[in-house]
């Protein structure tokens, strides 16, 4: 038997990043008497929200509108968005950005003291709030520091969540490992919020921190919650070759351009041109991320990229911005280029290539952040709130973690008010079983596999099989490899037998999470025999969007043998019928036609 301590809370939140903290504050504001547990495997300010750079969306300019934010988001998502969720989202964003301002977030300002906004990819008008290029950092620290005001929030810092407790058909708590001691702790709760972030580390080149391992997704999945739209994985087009570190889209929003080995702005060859006049919205470098990453893939095959020690790359050229503007608007980008690549963006272009950045799919949630499992709520990257569809627009995810983090906190608080605590004995028995299982990974004798080897094999396999362009055969191979790795991970032999601070043990539990998530991704990708947003296929009959068969959400449900079974769910469409997704000149023509049509309908031609 493992020693197991127990505590009781009204709400337990797993994940101390932007979404988890926003949920905690919302729940605490609902009722000061509410007891809230915030469980995080790192100190909250280490969470990966910290690395977001460019900004967060919220309509604020007089020439902007909620309708425009809605349209950009739905078009950007290639119509796989749930439009009721998008409507709610765009209506709430600005209020949340102002809320952060009231909590002290140091947003960049205009001369008159009002908050400034910048342009972002796929967005028609400037609506991205920013704090230089450290927006996620400032949002996270603002939320964390503000959370310290609320005595109802009890933090479990550096506690690793190893299972959900489900009883009587509802989520009732979690089991966590106190990393410093290696001991198990059961946190019983009336409602549970998952806010554990994405799963980008299942791929090799990625922008994500080491902690981004899909924990919450896998936990929900193992308890029968389907994972939705997992095949949609975003490649960010401008990342550091090798390390994968991010150079924000704001580089282009501020006027940066992308050139190939001939110094040519190649995006004009891929439906994003013409190149001039520049700058302009929703064209060229200000196109959406999926299209830009796909254009890189084509350039690479045409032999028009450059070659470096970490493979092919193109140039992100910021020289025209000048030193002063670079230092003001993109200080962290300058720092990264200088420290990690030894170059000054004011003098020379930055070598970049696409890397995995964001998981569009996740735990399906309602507009009020409820998952299909009663008592379980989810927000942030681990959730599939329905707003991103097949491709997320830059600056929508930071706004999302506020809007839906708040919804999750409020919903969980409301649920906790009407739900009781379940049978203590049953939950303890469940927690013991979970602890036993996790301990057995650490204590396993006679294992034959090495953790690092399996982890790297998974990342290579996913990169090959589920990259920017995919084909049936390569995906099938990745599915076989991931299935095989799921077997092999059961035989990992740890070199570290210690109980306290055993990070090799935790990394093995994380790898198990990652393999579940990877398997859901690759099986979802195989089943979607069309091309939409970030899911692009090369095999015959699958290269176009097919609304007749696939204007549907993919649902990957864990079956008895542990592999995912794929079904489909309805996409909520309220006011935007699926149309042609066009950028550059074609997009401008389509927008003009739409405006003309609207005017005609209103009889004001």
């Amino acid at each position: 038997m493992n020693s197991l301590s127990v505590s009781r809370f009204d709400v337990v939140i797993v994940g101390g990043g932007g979404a988890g903290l926003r949920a905690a504050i919302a729940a605490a504001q609902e009722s000061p008497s509410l007891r809230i547990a915030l469980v995080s495997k790192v100190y909250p300010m280490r969470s990966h929200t910290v690395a977001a750079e460019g900004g967060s969306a919220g309509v604020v300019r007089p020439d902007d509108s909620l309708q425009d934010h809605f349209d950009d988001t739905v078009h950007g998502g290639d119509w796989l968005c749930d439009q009721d969720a998008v409507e709610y989202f765009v209506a709430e964003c600005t209020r949340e950005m102002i809320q952060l301002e009231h909590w002290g977030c140091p947003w960049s300002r205009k001369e008159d003291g009002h908050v400034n906004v910048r342009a972002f990819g796929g967005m028609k008008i400037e609506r991205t709030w920013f704090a230089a290029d450290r927006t996620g950092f400032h949002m996270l620290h603002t939320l964390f520091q503000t959370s310290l005001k609320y005595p109802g929030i009890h933090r479990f810092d550096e506690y690793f969540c190893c299972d959900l407790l489900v009883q009587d058909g509802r989520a009732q708590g979690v089991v966590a490992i106190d990393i410093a001691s290696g001991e198990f702790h059961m946190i019983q709760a009336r409602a549970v919020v998952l806010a554990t972030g994405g799963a980008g580390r299942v791929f090799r080149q990625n922008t994500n921190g080491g902690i981004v391992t899909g924990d919450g997704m896998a936990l929900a999945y193992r308890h029968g919650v389907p994972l939705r739209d997992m095949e949609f994985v975003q490649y960010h087009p401008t990342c550091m070759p090798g390390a994968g570190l991010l150079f924000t889209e704001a580089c282009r929003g501020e006027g940066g351009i992308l050139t190939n080995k001939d110094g040519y702005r190649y995006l004009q060859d891929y439906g994003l041109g013409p190149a001039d006049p520049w700058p302009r919205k929703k064209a060229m470098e200000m196109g959406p991320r999926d299209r830009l990453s796909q254009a890189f893939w084509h350039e690479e095959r045409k032999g028009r990229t450059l070659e470096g020690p970490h493979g092919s790359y193109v140039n992100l050229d910021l020289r025209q911005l000048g030193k002063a503007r670079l230092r003001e608007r993109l200080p962290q980008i300058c720092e990264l280029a200088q420290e990690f690549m030894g170059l000054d963006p004011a003098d020379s272009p930055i070598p970049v290539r696409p890397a995995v950045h964001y998981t569009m799919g996740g735990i399906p949630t309602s507009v009020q952040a409820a998952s299909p499992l009663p008592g379980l709520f989810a927000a942030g990257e681990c959730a599939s709130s329905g707003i991103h569809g097949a491709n997320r627009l830059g600056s929508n995810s930071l706004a999302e973690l506020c809007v839906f983090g708040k919804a999750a906190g409020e919903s969980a608080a409301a649920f906790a008010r009407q739900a009781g605590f379940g049978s203590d004995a049953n939950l303890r028995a469940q927690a013991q079983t979970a602890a036993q299982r996790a301990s057995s990974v650490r204590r396993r004798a006679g294992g034959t596999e090495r953790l690092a080897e399996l982890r790297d094999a998974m990342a290579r396999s996913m990169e090959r099989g589920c990259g920017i362009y995919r084909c049936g055969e390569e995906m099938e191979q990745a599915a076989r490899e991931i299935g095989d790795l799921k077997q092999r991970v059961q035989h990992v032999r740890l070199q570290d037998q210690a109980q306290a601070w055993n990070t090799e043990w935790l990394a093995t539990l994380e790898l198990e999470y990652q393999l579940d998530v990877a398997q859901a991704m690759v099986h979802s990708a195989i089943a979607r025999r069309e091309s939409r947003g970030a899911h692009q296929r090369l095999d015959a009959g699958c290269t176009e969007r097919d609304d007749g068969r696939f204007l549907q959400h993919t649902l990957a449900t864990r079956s008895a043998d542990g592999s995912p079974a794929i079904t489909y769910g309805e996409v909520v469409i309220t006011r935007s019928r699926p149309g042609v997704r066009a950028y550059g000149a074609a997009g401008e023509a389509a927008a003009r036609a739409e405006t003309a049509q609207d005017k005609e309908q209103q009889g004001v031609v």
Partner: protein
Amino acid sequence: MSSETRTIAVEVLRYQPDKAAAPYVEKFDVPFTDDMSVLQGLQYIKDHFDGSLTFRWSCRMAICGSCGVMIDGVPSLGCRTFLRDYHPGPLRVEAMANFPIERDLVVDASEFIDRLPSIQPWLAPRQEKPLSEGEYLQTPRQLEQFESFSHCINCMLCYAACPQYGLDKQFLGPGLTALLHRYNADSRDGGSQQRMELVHSTEGVWQCTAVGYCSEVCPKQVDPANAVNLNKTLSAVAWVARLVPGGRR
């Protein structure tokens, strides 16, 4: 930068309380390319030589603040310090000074974390207004007054550098003073008087012996030494004000 692979000797201060009572030094020969950080060197050791090597890390880009260590005696972030600069070595990596070691390179950070609420690091608006009235106005000049102090990533390197904190753990120290000043210097904030009580106290700025090493090691140019100095001035002014009849307390 060359892409050729070379080898560097990395000496790590190990502390494995489950195996040995005292810390010891272990040497590893690590192959590296010029773009590899010390953090990547540690990851290489963990993956290839010893899975029990324990250290914190996450973002790899000097913003999450997890990977602070001593590198050749200097408090540094492992992710933004490069092996090439120490070739041929040996290069020594140790847990951050002035903190109790939990295991290998992991220190107990709870002193710092638990103390955060004491400086009230949240905005106490001068004048509350509802969200419907929009944002508080703040000009770029007003933002500049505190902006650099808001860059602190809580990596605690300044505490590892601070001789006074080494002597007296009651000292508020550089990072927390900088964060406190970040709110006091914010034009929207009205909570400075409460925070200044801590600045004046025996835990406050007067313990600082003006060594300035904290600012040298700060990876984000927060300049905590400057925050401490500014607050010494403010504290002195407040003290003088108390002596003036009718002066403000």
